[in-house]
């Protein structure tokens, strides 16, 4: 009788989410017995369900999983073939490689800089022209076409900041956020993103900004993310995303 009382109390705690892992184990052991008091019978399946589900195993073995991993990474990078060679031939190869790289740099330096700068200029002019277009799809296309994401110049950044903040169309704003994320850390981009985060009302755009801040591994964004989670009018999913973002950033 006394023992039953104890179990009944445990059950009550279990249903109010207050049991410890230890107590939950106790329940699982107790409900395995054959001679359950009738009044507790109705709890049996629920308590034992956990043990039942724990038996589930995937039929995929490690090789299956690795096959998929290889498939995915092969699509991304060419295979490296290892050759067995003596160290002398290696020495020669290294020397040849260094020489090649040096020549490459010298040639590249002379030609690429100018063309790249002019390409960026051209791109920027086109971007600005298209951004003044009235159609959202035109503006969307403009932002999607930014190619020189690795080395943006200041004007390009400022243009993107403005689009992210002011464009009336959510998809265009999101594209701008994604373009900024692709550029990596740039002067001013973190402030612009956190600023936009607190002004943005569209959940999808808010989530895009959170993802961008996480992608940039910007720990200083944690404060803004925390601010966002405190705002009740912000959609729950967005706040969850912000929590996850905070967790990831703190963990980096």
């Amino acid at each position, binding site marked *: 009788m006394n023992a039953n009382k104890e179990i009944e109390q445990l059950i009550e705690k279990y*249903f109010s989410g207050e049991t410890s892992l230890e107590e939950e184990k106790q329940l699982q052991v107790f409900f395995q017995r054959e001679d359950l008091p009738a009044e507790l019978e109705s709890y049996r399946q629920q308590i034992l*369900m956990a043990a039942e*589900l*724990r038996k589930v195993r*995937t*039929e995929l073995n*490690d090789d299956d999983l690795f096959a998929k991993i290889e498939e995915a990474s092969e699509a991304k990078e060419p295979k490296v073939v290892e050759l067995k060679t003596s160290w002398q031939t290696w020495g020669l190869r290294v020397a040849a490689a260094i020489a090649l790289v040096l020549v490459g740099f010298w040639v590249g330096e002379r030609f690429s800089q100018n063309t790249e700068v002019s390409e960026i200029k051209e791109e920027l002019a086109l971007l600005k022209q298209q951004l003044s277009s009235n159609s959202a799809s035109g503006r969307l296309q403009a932002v999607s076409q930014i190619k020189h994401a690795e080395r943006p110049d200041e004007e390009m950044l400022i243009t993107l900041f403005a689009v992210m903040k002011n464009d009336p169309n959510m998809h265009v704003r999101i594209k701008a956020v994604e373009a900024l994320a692709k550029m990596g850390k740039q002067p001013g981009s973190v402030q612009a993103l956190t600023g936009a985060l607190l002004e943005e009302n569209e959940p999808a755009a808010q989530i895009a900004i959170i993802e961008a801040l996480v992608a940039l591994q910007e720990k200083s964004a944690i404060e803004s993310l925390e601010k966002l989670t405190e705002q009740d009018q912000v959609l729950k999913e967005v706040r969850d995303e912000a*929590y996850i973002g905070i967790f990831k950033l703190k963990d980096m």
Partner: protein
Amino acid sequence: MELQEFKTKVLPLKDRLYRIALAMLKSVEEAEDTLQDVMVRLWDKRAQLGEYRSVEALAVTVCKNRCIDKLKSKKHKHHEDVQTLEVESGLSNPYRSLELGESMKLMLKAFDTLPDQQRLLVILRDVEGYSYEEISMQTGLQINNIRVGLSRARKAAREAYLKETEYERQ
């Protein structure tokens, strides 16, 4: 993180991740698909994996997020109705690998009716036995909300189960 470490630290999580995906997506095929996808993502991140305090928490987070994405896009395509039909007719029983008594089948049926988030919490806590701190890291939820969510899930599961057994008896 190198191949060997990946094999000893990440791959052994596959059953746990699979169970989470199965409970969320209610389909063996989709759970397997998600598991492979999660492994590919973790492999892609292997360079940074060492920096995470808990690789396991990260793996669960990635898995959970993939499931939520799938559930969202499914709702988009109105696939869910079809799937519920399939589940009810036993066509795609997610737990077909288990030998279950009639009452346990009813219990799992009741469990399947819980909202996504509640199923997730039950799997993480009752099945996988994670602490509240761990679940908080995995889901981004605060511990208090996890307790409240679990309490609701357990009560709702009981109610649904009692309803199912009553229905069977009639």
